[in-house]
């Protein structure tokens, strides 16, 4: 019986290629809307957390209460460094200064995490140098390669940063995102520009082999007063939350729009297809098909359309993300498992809802119409 239902659904769809293509296309586009938007925000979150991820630090020590990097300022007395270093499991510790500032070169301005980096830093420096040096000395700066290109500056060029000027000694890659870029200056310059106080922003800790980041973070918080210490994973998660919170409304609205559009497309095409085959359903009933077999036909039709639409939508979004990767845009589309899961659940709900009206249609078909010829089918 399962076989009969699915066979009928497949044939009904297959004999109406144009309608199928239109509905699958419509569903695909509508679901892509949600998928792509999710992917863009996930991409932004990825980019935003790239510095944290690639900094090389296992534990981030910040001013008490500071749990992420974006749009907050952290200030710790420099003495914290020695206090942390004394804790078991801490292998290296690198103090950095960090501020969100605008860097400028030529006509180009960009919002940047400006990092003050000590010489020979064990963590917190650029992880992928495209050109020049990975070390910054006094009066020097490392900027993102993309920023330099758009600004029309090269190694040896000048960049305005933190109210002064610095000479480009290195070009890093992977350090720019849609929202910001990362620039590295020397720790001494940063401190001088800030009036020379013995203050640091964060202490980046690597842990000794065998020690756990969470354990070390907990130990630091216990032993050093006035700090918040988080493992890299926790710190990243906190950072991601900013994007999630920021984007939640937009994503919700677009998801609803996509959901409604997809539902409308499927409901309409399945309804029209059912109406067009009303007589066939009457014939099947007369021949002895039970209603539930016919309901299954409609459900299978909706499910097949929606599944195909979802597959095409995923393919489309995936291609889009690859295409975007090939461009110079500092944009990344990251299709996450949770987003696919969410959209798949949407799709299943859509298929179910879309089948309701046609099922009611079929339920009302009188099998006795088979003997009434010429009657409106």
């Amino acid at each position, binding site marked *: *019986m399962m*076989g*009969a239902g699915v*066979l*009928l659904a497949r*044939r*009904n769809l*297959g*004999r109406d290629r144009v309608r199928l293509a239109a509905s699958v296309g419509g569903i695909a586009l509508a679901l892509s809307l949600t998928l792509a938007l999710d992917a863009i925000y996930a991409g932004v979150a990825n980019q935003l957390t790239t510095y944290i991820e690639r900094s090389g630090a296992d534990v981030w020590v910040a001013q008490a209460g500071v749990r992420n990097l974006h749009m907050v300022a952290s200030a710790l007395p420099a003495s914290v460094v020695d206090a942390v270093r004394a804790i078991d499991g801490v292998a290296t510790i690198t103090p950095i200064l960090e501020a969100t500032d605008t860097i400028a070169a030529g006509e180009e301005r960009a919002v940047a995490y400006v990092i003050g980096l000590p010489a020979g830093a064990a963590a917190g420096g650029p992880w992928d140098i495209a050109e020049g040096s990975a070390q910054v000395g006094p009066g020097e700066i490392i900027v993102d390669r993309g920023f330099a290109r758009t600004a029309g500056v090269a190694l040896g060029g000048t960049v305005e940063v933190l109210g002064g000027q610095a000479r480009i000694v290195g070009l890093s890659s992977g350090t720019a995102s849609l929202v910001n870029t990362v620039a590295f200056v020397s720790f001494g310059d940063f401190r001088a520009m800030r009036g020379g106080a013995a203050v640091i922003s964060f202490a980046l800790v690597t842990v000794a082999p065998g020690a756990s980041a969470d354990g070390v973070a907990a130990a630091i918080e216990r032993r050093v007063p006035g700090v918040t210490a988080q493992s890299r994973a926790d710190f990243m998660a906190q950072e991601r939350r900013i994007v999630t919170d920021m984007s939640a409304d937009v994503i919700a609205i677009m998801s609803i729009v996509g959901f409604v559009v997809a539902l409308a497309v499927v409901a309409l095409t399945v309804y029209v297809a059912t109406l067009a*085959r009303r*007589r*066939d359903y009457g*014939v*099947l*009933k*007369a*021949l*002895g*098909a*039970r209603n539930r*077999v016919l309901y299954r036909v409609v459900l299978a039709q909706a499910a097949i359309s929606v599944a195909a639409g979802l597959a095409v939508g995923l393919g489309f979004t995936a291609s889009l993300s690859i295409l975007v990767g090939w461009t110079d845009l500092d944009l990344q589309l990251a299709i996450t498992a949770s987003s696919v899961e969410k959209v798949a659940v949407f799709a299943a709900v859509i298929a179910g809802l879309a089948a309701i009206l046609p099922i009611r249609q079929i339920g009302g078909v009188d*099998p*006795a119409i*088979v*003997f*009434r*010829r010429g009657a409106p089918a």
Partner: protein
Amino acid sequence: MTELTLDVRDISKRFGDGETGVLAVRDVSLAIEPGEIVLIMGPSGSGKTTLLSMMGALLRPTSGSIHLDGMPISMMSEDRLPDIRLRQIGFIFQDFNLLSALTTLENVSVVAELAGVKGRAARGRAQALLSDLGLGERLDFLPEKLSGGEKQRVAIARALVNDPPLILADEPTANLDSKIGHEIMRLLRAVAKQEGRSVVIVSHDERIRDIADRVLWLEDGALRDIVTMATDPVCGMAIERERAVSAARDGETWYFCSRGCRAEYLGGPTAEAVIEGPAGDRQAADRER
């Protein structure tokens, strides 16, 4: 005593109530034996389709009872009727009613699958039936690619696939030319006689009389004694053959509304013989109704 395939007792069907109500079938009783072919004829609107729908468990009689192979189908719950239709009855329609999205083979196998036969076995059974009916080369055709006669043969295969004891056909030859119509009638006869199925046919088609074991006349919803209509060759009036006066001429029998018309007709030259009274033979001049 042979078990009856179909035992219809005093059934009536009323559509609507009161003034506007229509009594489409009134007090019809009829019994059909295995292997018997019954033809039901009658004027348009006389209730033939309504009667057939009740025998096919598609419509419940307002009163009376219908037993199919001993089962009281007129009293069964709605829930059990699909299964009766699926396994006990084969339907054949004037406009074939094949499923347009399915191939010839699928149109037949899907009905077997509905009855719980698994895909492969269902296709095998369908293929065997279709090949027997000369459609072995048409298995993968869509209905739109088939001729009318082929479509009706597919419909016959579909009606037979679950091996039902009763076949119901409403105007099975009306959409076919006479040669193809004849072939379909021959098939229906074979279905009844070789396989012992009962066949009930509703039709206006006089030619079906040739294959029927019994012809019933339905008029105003009730079964009447058989009447055969003819046209008076003189005044053109439609008349009941059984009650008309007749005359034989040039090897044919003619029927007249009155002695006057017959006299006028016979006034012409080559009259050979004169037979008076009702006659039962069927001639080219016969008209239904």
